[in-house]
């Protein structure tokens, strides 16, 4: 008898899988960067191909012929690239047989919706576990319904996880610290620069210095 999981159960299973894999590879949120991810891919036997694609494609997973590989959009900055690579890991762990049987096909977005959402859930938990996030939120004293954009900036700077402002905003939404779509229009990067100054690598003198070195 086949037992079907509800969406919620499926997503929870993905979180558990992410936790298992983090433990298996002794992952430390603060040390999870592209180098660690590349090592992990190597251990899993997955080839990474940096590919020039449009901005819309972040990554593609293929595994026919027993040769798993991932196309990664080479224009992606570090944080979204890391997330996309974690996303594709879920396909590697869970979706190989469906892919090889032809049950999943490229471009069949409606049929793949749950699979793709589950990959996002896996990636989010893999990169920054919910419990770690909640601990950090508590430590910073964030209160439900009373979070300011400045506090989100501090959260990003203190959490130590390689995640974007969009990631944190969505997590805060999910745990109902903020309302849905709240702060959508806030330019967090700009706000961070106003509070903490422009990072050294973006300051004109540093750019000029680098240019001269080339």
């Amino acid at each position, binding site marked *: 008898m086949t037992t079907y999981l509800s969406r919620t159960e499926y997503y929870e299973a993905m979180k558990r899988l992410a936790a298992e894999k983090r433990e298996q590879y002794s992952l430390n949120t603060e040390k999870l960067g592209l180098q660690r991810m590349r090592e992990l891919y190597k251990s899993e036997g997955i080839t990474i*191909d940096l*590919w020039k*694609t*449009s*901005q*819309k*494609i*972040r*990554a*593609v*997973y*293929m*595994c*026919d*012929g027993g*040769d798993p*590989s991932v*196309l990664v959009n080479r224009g992606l900055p570090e944080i979204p690239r890391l997330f*996309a690579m974690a*996303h*594709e890991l879920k*396909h590697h762990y869970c*979706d190989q047989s469906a*892919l*090889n049987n*032809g049950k*999943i*096909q*490229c*471009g069949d*977005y409606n049929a*793949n919706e749950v*699979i*793709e959402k589950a*990959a996002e859930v896996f990636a989010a938990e893999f990169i920054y576990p919910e419990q770690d996030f909640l601990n950090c939120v508590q430590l910073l004293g964030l209160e439900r319904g009373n979070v300011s954009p400045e506090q989100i900036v501090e959260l990003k700077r203190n959490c130590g996880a390689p995640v974007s402002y969009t990631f944190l905003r969505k997590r805060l939404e999910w745990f109902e610290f903020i309302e849905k779509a709240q702060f959508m229009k806030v330019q967090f990067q700009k706000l961070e620069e106003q509070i903490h100054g422009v990072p050294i690598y973006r300051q004109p003198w540093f750019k000029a210095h680098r240019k001269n070195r080339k």
Partner: protein
Amino acid sequence: MPDIYKHIGEQIRELRTSFKGKGISQDDLASEFGTTANTISRWETATYKPSVMELEKLARFFAVPIAVFFPQAQITPQINALLSATGDLDDDDLEEVTRYAQFRKARAEMKKAKRKK
């Protein structure tokens, strides 16, 4: 199994000599690729073995699929892939995914050829 590199060499020569109806010299092709005419010549005679990345670049330059270098590689129109994308893909995006699928097959063929030797 015929020598895969011999076939590749013949294809490069054919594509080069028929490029835009009048052909392109080895010198000009070499400068497009930042290599030497000697390398192009040796690819064509299968003295040197181009890498799969070089073949991909050649295929893009000549606007052909990489599969032309691999007559035995079966490239199926159905692609089994899972994508992480930020929106609906257009024809160009899907073409790029197809190119990648063909690139993978080409790489597998080259690995197979190396193992046989």
